[in-house]
């Protein structure tokens, strides 16, 4: 019963899906104990960050049915908020909080301005306008080097209690030292869990139902008496807020931020791909998609390298399979999944469970 409430009555509705989600939950919850290595833990943290980022994008794309290309802009604002506050003002908890608050306020204002402006005119403008604004913002961030550190980005330190040298307990527990790094991981884990549950709550609330009604038939929703522009704008503001928090998580983990780590268009494409593969309009899809993608990203390039070496006899095939061209294969995968896999993994599993 409590679980039902916690998940806002939006259960996975498929035994396989439930099993996968439970496994992932346990793995992520115990990651510092299962894989104590630095790299493995970074992969787990990256998965947590992407889960929040993608789930927040799903609110916009999957539930409201509008495409934004400025999602990484809000991701970047969150990361820069922490980075600038901690590197310019000093690494204290107060500054960290101030940085996060400033980032959230800036995101709300920007999302509100973009939403009210472009959604009021025509929803189709939204995709084009966000694309233009995101690219202008990215260039601005690398140009204002006095504030943002330019192309080099910012390295910064966090309050001592989060530093990897800070030990909470003298002796390691189960072979894992309880350092600031360990604590940071669990902060990220708790934040990701809370935000995914919050998003589930939002999309299953009456507000979320209206968003889905707008997605299915804008005209009819308007005719029933819902103010479509307001709902769409609020949805884009909410999604921007969650994306900003994902950016904060990224900065907490990396202790570094630059244009390429949080603002680049490639991250936007990754987010699009994960949403489509995981399943649009199912918050759970972001969990499965993010895990699959982050793991595949690490191995796809190795796989391509193998293929490229094997095809060295045919230069053009080797060029196609070169690890530098992995974006090409990502693009092909993206197009194919939009065509043949529009409901994503979660949609497939649910259809199977429902006997469709």
């Amino acid at each position: 019963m409590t679980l039902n409430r916690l998940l806002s009555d939006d259960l996975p509705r498929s035994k396989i899906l439930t099993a996968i989600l439970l496994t992932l939950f346990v793995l992520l919850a115990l990651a510092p104990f299962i894989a104590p290595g630095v790299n493995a833990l970074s992969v787990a943290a990256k998965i947590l960050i992407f889960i929040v980022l993608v789930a927040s994008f799903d609110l916009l794309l999957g539930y409201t049915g509008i495409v934004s290309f400025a999602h990484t802009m809000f991701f970047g604002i969150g990361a820069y908020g922490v980075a600038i506050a901690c590197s310019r003002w000093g690494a204290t908890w107060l500054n960290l909080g101030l940085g996060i608050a400033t980032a959230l306020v800036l995101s709300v204002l920007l999302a509100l301005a973009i939403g009210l402006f472009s959604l009021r005119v025509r929803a189709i403008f939204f995709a084009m306008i966000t694309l233009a604004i995101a690219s202008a913002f990215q260039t601005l961030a690398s140009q204002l080097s006095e504030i943002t550190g330019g192309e080099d980005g910012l390295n910064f330190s966090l309050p001592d209690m989060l530093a990897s040298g800070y030990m909470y307990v003298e002796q390691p527990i189960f072979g894992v030292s309880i350092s600031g790094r360990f604590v940071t991981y669990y902060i990220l884990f708790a934040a990701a869990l809370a935000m995914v549950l919050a998003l589930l709550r939002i999309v299953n609330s009456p507000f979320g139902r209206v968003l889905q009604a707008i997605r299915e038939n804008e005209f009819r929703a308007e005719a029933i008496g819902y103010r479509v522009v307001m709902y769409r704008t609020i949805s884009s503001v909410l999604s921007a807020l969650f994306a900003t928090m994902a950016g904060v998580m990224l900065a907490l983990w990396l202790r570094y931020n630059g244009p390429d780590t949080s603002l680049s268009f490639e991250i936007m494409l990754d987010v699009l791909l994960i949403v489509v593969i995981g399943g649009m309009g199912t918050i759970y899809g972001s969990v499965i998609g993010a895990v699959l993608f982050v793991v595949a990203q690490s191995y796809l390039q190795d796989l391509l390298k193998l293929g490229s070496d094997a095809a060295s006899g045919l230069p053009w095939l080797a060029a196609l399979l070169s690890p530098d061209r992995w974006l090409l294969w990502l693009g092909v995968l993206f197009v194919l999944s939009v065509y043949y896999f529009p409901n994503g993994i979660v949609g497939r599993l649910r259809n199977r469970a429902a006997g469709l």
Partner: protein
Amino acid sequence: MSNTITSGAPAKPSIDFDWKPLLLVPLLAMLALPLIGSPSTWLTLTVAGLAMGMIIFVIASGLTLVFGLMDVLNFGHGVFIALGAFVATTVLGVMPGWAASPELWRNLIAVFAAMLVAMAVAGAVGLAFERVLVRPVYGQHLKQILITMGGMIIGEELIKVIWGPQQIPLMLPEGLRGAVIVGDAAIEKFRLLAVLLGGLVFVALAWVLTRTKIGLLVRAGVENGEMVESLGYRIRRLFIAVFVVGSALAGTGGVMWGLYQQTVTPQMGAQVNILIFIVIIIGGLGSTGGALIGALLVGLMANYTGFLAPKVALFSNIALMVAILLWRPRGVYPVANR
């Protein structure tokens, strides 16, 4: 007016031409003059802006027609720009004697040859793009945006496979380099050529659209596609033709853009794409005349702010778009029904 009535001749229906947007271009140029100060610098910048605007127009005209006619929002339009520019580097590369010759007519033939080949290649790829990517997702905006964006990435990566990921210099032929001196102002020769070519494309498009049967059908299709279909015309074929022509124009524009910047990079398509979106939003989706005005405004704005305040240059075009949309929310020349 009273004359026509008393003479008894049937009064011709006067065409209500909306001239206000036309004034925007000279207005922007006049506003910039006192800010820049020196008239010769202003003249140089204005010609540069007009040239850039004309090139952008050549690229944007195809996109706005495709949207207007078939309600297809093509995020992959930028690929044809980059493709055209890269084809031009190859074409100019195989005829070095013509491009490096000191005689102007040989240079012009080299440039036109490059444009023709770029047009043909971009048109052919456009045909495939429409068949493979756009056709299956008719009438679904969300999927169109996603699919054409995917097509853009694939196209960009394929260009990197063929021509390599680095930027390639695209030198102007010998006779087109340098500048003409007018008073104190230096005006680059190629910019004049670009204005001329852009003007030609506009006139040709306007002629086809207003004076031929095909043009009539295209305009009718933009207004009300179903009605055209019910009269027995196959609007699908018309659409494919417009898509191919639009892609070919983007290819040509890409050659001009490459020559204007003197380098080509695989990412140039994505960069120009953003300018083009701003242009067609300003112009009103589906309107060719609006695209021309939007392109000229964007070109002028980019050059003026690039000179006055380089750091805000990026946001100037967005600000311009916001200002125009506040005045006319559907663009300067809104097209019916969409």
